[in-house]
């Protein structure tokens, strides 16, 4: 196994981490909301996918047609009904409230599904691979996930920089008070923002459920990976988040190549190293 192979496999894994991180990056970027429940919402989306596939017989990809609107509605309602009222009191209230939501989701899932491992079955694509010249095998599924992550970020960039709604998002991110003087209802906009963030959380959750087994307590690890990707990339930059995910994935792949026990640790070490060298991340607040 050559180093090129390690880089490619790690990079593809990074697409996964980026996908985990998009929702987190968005809700922090727009409303400065540090969503501790983000990882659990990813897992919740996987369970919603499980319910849909089991009750309708749809395959997991098709289940997104239902999971995505459900998670959008959940995000909208959560922000409108609960999180908006935490945003005026500083950094601590949203942290505490989302921490509470995290516990509620974990225990709700334990209650409803038990502590068993579940998995979404998508069939042959899970194991299919593509042989590149040079003898490197690329899994079709990781490649697909990477492409989805890139498309997701590209579409969000289009939303932010080419639409009226995106302009409003950026204005509110800059200065909510002045944005409101211009006619923007920031509470409604925040609800829409978390709704949209949850669209990507839904996609991440279902794709995660196809890739590996999941259980009710799988959320916090996803949260940490997502956090690391966001912070490596630089707060507020979506392309940075993709790079952050790739850095994390490559570091893990290198760690795993040296010693399989080092995979997770290597990712965290890379995160710490970047935090020391560039505390604000690689691409803080870029305007690409």
């Amino acid at each position, binding site marked *: 196994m050559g180093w090129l192979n390690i880089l490619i496999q790690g990079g593809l894994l990074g697409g996964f981490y980026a996908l985990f991180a998009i929702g987190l990056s968005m809700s922090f970027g727009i409303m400065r909301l540090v969503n501790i429940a983000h990882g659990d919402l990813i897992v919740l989306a996987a369970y919603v996918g499980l319910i849909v596939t089991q009750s309708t017989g749809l395959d997991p990809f098709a289940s997104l047609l239902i999971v995505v609107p459900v998670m959008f509605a959940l995000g909208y309602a959560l922000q409108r009904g609960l999180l908006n009222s935490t945003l005026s009191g500083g950094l601590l209230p949203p942290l505490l409230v989302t921490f509470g939501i995290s516990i509620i989701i974990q225990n709700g899932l334990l209650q409803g599904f038990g502590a068993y491992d579940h998995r979404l079955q998508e069939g042959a694509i899970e194991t299919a691979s593509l042989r590149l010249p040079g003898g490197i095998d690329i899994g079709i599924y990781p490649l697909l996930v990477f492409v989805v992550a890139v498309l997701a970020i590209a579409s969000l960039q289009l939303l932010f920089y080419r639409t009226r709604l995106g302009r409003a998002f950026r204005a509110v991110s*800059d200065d909510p008070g002045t944005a*409101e*003087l211009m*006619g923007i209802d920031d509470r409604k906009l925040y609800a829409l923002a978390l709704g949209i963030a949850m669209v990507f959380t839904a996609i991440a959750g279902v794709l995660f459920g196809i890739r590996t087994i999941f259980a009710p307590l799988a959320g916090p690890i996803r949260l940490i990976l997502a956090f690391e990707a966001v912070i490596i990339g630089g707060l507020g930059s979506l392309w940075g988040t993709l790079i952050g995910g790739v850095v994390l994935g490559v570091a893990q792949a290198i760690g795993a190549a040296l010693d399989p026990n080092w995979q997770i640790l290597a990712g965290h070490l890379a995160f710490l190293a970047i935090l020391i060298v560039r505390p604000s991340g690689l691409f803080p607040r870029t305007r690409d």
Partner: protein
Amino acid sequence: MSLLRTHNLSAFYGDFQALFEINVAVEDGETVAIIGANGAGKTTFLRTVAGAIASAAEAVVFDGKAVGHLPPHEIVRLGIAMVPEGRRLFPSLTVEENLLLGTHSERKGPWTLKRVYELFPRLYDLRHLPAPALSGGQQQMAAIGRGLMANPRLLLCDELSLGLAPVVIRDIYQCLGAITAEGTTVVLVEQDINRALDASVRFYCFQEGRLALAAPTANFDRAAITAAYFGL
């Protein structure tokens, strides 16, 4: 009927009372100045009218409708736009995007991007620059343009001259004529008394949160203003 009328308007920052029973009336189409020393409550007054500071519903009546209790995004939809103190352009947006933000009030009227660029031709060349790249005067033009894009019936201008060179201030006040010519009513808050009085037909002088003097500007008595301004 006045376009804007306040009835015993009081405003608070927490427990601190910043305005005491202010009664102001602004007629449709006129330009009114509010002057006063630092801390007199001028900006608080504008922010209360714009909805950024809550007040009793009946304390602010706009076009016959009690609006004191409404949030800012609803007030601007009714036709009150604000050019805030210190410009407050959105730093991560371009000049043109800042102007377009004004259209979120969803109001139709004479002011479009094209008209704003006609009024401030320099902004057209700078339209793709990020707002912080502009000079103070250009930023003030963009902030006025953004307010106009809301097609307001009443434009609240807070310290247009703040931190600007005299020649730039003169340019900006010249443009104010074109704005009022469209029938837009303007309330100017200024520390620069002469500038404010030249541009307005009437003025109110605030002092420590209270109304100290209200008079037409045409034959104002300098000594009376000084007394009201400084509370002598």
